[in-house]
């Protein structure tokens, strides 16, 4: 990849980052900052993130988005009425899994 000559642009000077610097994922930057032992009260990108919610998450039907009082114990999908339950019975498993992962509910058995 580096062997490819970059298109010449007159306004650029020959310059290259050290190889390991061109891409660092945020997670890595986070670890780096943590190792720096910054003063505790100094805000950083990672300390200003929103706190976890203290309110109980409201339950909505995975299919229609309506308030869902029921959970199907078999597929773990939430549903709000019998019509939705009926439609769930014919649902292929990848769609069920899609709904579950969208809500962040992932089962222990990947």
């Amino acid at each position, binding site marked *: 990849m580096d062997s*490819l000559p*970059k*298109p010449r*642009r*007159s*306004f*650029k*000077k020959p*310059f290259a*980052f050290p190889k390991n*610097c*061109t*891409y*660092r*994922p*945020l997670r890595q*930057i986070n670890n*780096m*900052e943590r190792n*720096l*032992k*910054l003063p505790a*009260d*100094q*805000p*950083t*990108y990672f300390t*200003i*993130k*929103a*706190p*976890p*919610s*203290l*309110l109980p*998450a*409201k339950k*909505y039907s995975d*299919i*229609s*988005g*309506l*308030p869902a009082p029921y959970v199907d114990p078999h597929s773990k999908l939430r549903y*709000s*009425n019998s019509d939705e339950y009926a439609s769930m019975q*014919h649902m*292929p*498993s*990848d*769609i069920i*899994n*899609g*709904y579950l*992962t*969208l*809500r*962040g*509910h992932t089962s222990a*058995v*990947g």
Partner: protein
Amino acid sequence: MTAKERVLIIDNGSYECRVGWNDISVPELRFRNVLTKPRKDRKKDNQPGIGDGATTMGNETPAEIQVGNDITNIEAVRAHLKSPFERNVITNWNHQEQILDYIFSKMGFEAEPNIGNPIVFTEALANPNVCRQQMNELLFECYGVPSLTYGIDALYSWHHFQHERGKVADALIISFGYSTTHVIPVLDGKLQMQHVRRLNVGGYHIITFLFRLMQMKYPVHLNAITISRMEKLVHEHCHIAIDYKEELLKWAHVDYYDAQIMKIQLPYNPVTATNALLTAEQKQEKRRELAMRLLEMKNRRENEKLQEDEQQLQLLKKLRQLYEQQKEQKFERALEQQQIENLEELDKLISTVSGRITRIKERAVSSPRPNKQVDKMAKPPEGMDQAQWLSELREKREELIRRKQARQQKRQELAKRHTLAAQERMRIISTLARCEKRRKANGDEEDDGFGMNDDDWDVYKRINRHNDDSDSDAESEQLIEYEKILNHYDANIDEGGAASKALTAAENYQLHFGVEAIRVPEVLFQPSMIGSSEAGLAELIAFVLKFFTASEQQRMVEHVYLTGGCAQFRGLKERLAKELLELRPFQSHFAIFESDNHTLGAWLGALVQANESSFNEILTTRQDYEEHGCEYFKEHNASNIYYPTPKD
């Protein structure tokens, strides 16, 4: 440095980048902050013929990188889109360099030796030092920028608002970005950095949420549901519910649903669609035609074979005659020519060939199969009402269809891992294997009684992946029979006549967009809907306000300021007013202001700053960069706060 120098303003957002000069009041260049590198084989396809030969060998160009507006069809390269951003922070510097190249060449630096103008650059709130360091290196070392300054987009936007409406000391800025949402308290004109909070939910999450929802609601139209289309839906038709629960409950009523539902027609081409709409009968007809054609082919081949055989038989018979006529020498030579050893072999050959001929002829005679029995429309059995009989038939037909679907679904599930059916299959296989092992360990055969019962053999049927349905042929024939009868007696069996069929086909290509209009943007207030554990916007505002004393809180909520692309949702202001009313003390006052230009606010604010007389004082110059190290920048009223990285 002269005061007249033009300043280049770059609002480098994670969704869109806006670039312009400080003497023109609108950004000249706006583009999606993405790039793509077309695959090599794709390029070859585009220019057939030229690709080979010596011409291209000489000036081999690296794969052409397309940036921003150069991408003609963003949907075609969706999978290969690259962004320098991770959330709102730049992490991929290769990509950022490409994008800067694009910006500078579009802004007319093509023939210049370096970038000779000061630059205003926006960056993320609390941008990590490492990232700024790399941006500095890139701009100073690679592009030779004389001086620059960094600012926060939300603060620039606030700056612009104050420029228009007069100075305000305290505010609570809520900035709705593409990947993040910030709640930013400002007291006495100063950013309260340690109390800023960032919610990692933004426009991107809203769009992908809708995208996934629609894909799962309409698995048939998986490919027609594209990010671009969903973006358009989000931009134009989504709004924030003032009372989410109340609006949801309205949707639960059929009347409301029917009245409010928005139907979105996907591209629909009747020609390609008809294939899927063939009835079982038509499919059967097609299959029959195919079978006929195969049969014809087979007959032709057999005929050819027959002729060949007959010729050979004649030849052999002539040889035999030679022998009978006692022409020994001629006979011997002829035998040699035909590679036949002796008389007995000749006789054997004659008998086999003639046998073959008779067999083929026999088959040809019997082959015209008895034509199908004359179709006679079934009649309702004696003593039964026709309507009742028909409805019974219809039920039977539905039952058959349902069974067929169930079987098909089971087959699909078996093919996938992690499904209940597949797991059951593995369980059976492993128990069967274990039985076998036990027998071997014992040495002698220990009969477990398998096979005593006929049902035992069903085990193999259950573990067979292709779940053999030998009975389904019979079933489909019966299905056709039912359909024929129903068609005969009852014209509007399925969806009515052929005329309405085309219409319903187009309707099959419609997306129903109802609850989604409020459900999708609601993730800003309830991130738990997309599995995030973060506090929602209202909770977050309350959380941030609690850092301050009651009087400070009051000063801030007098100016709640909304900016950023996602602030354009209808109903957002009203919703926030409702939430603030709930969390503020009884009968206290607050006011919400909206940016005049949600998407361009930041750029315009930077423009205001670039035209201030004190602008030169806040520029970080090349000299500063060389003197203070590569992460240094000068603070100003719209910038981050500089915390030098501790040296150990």
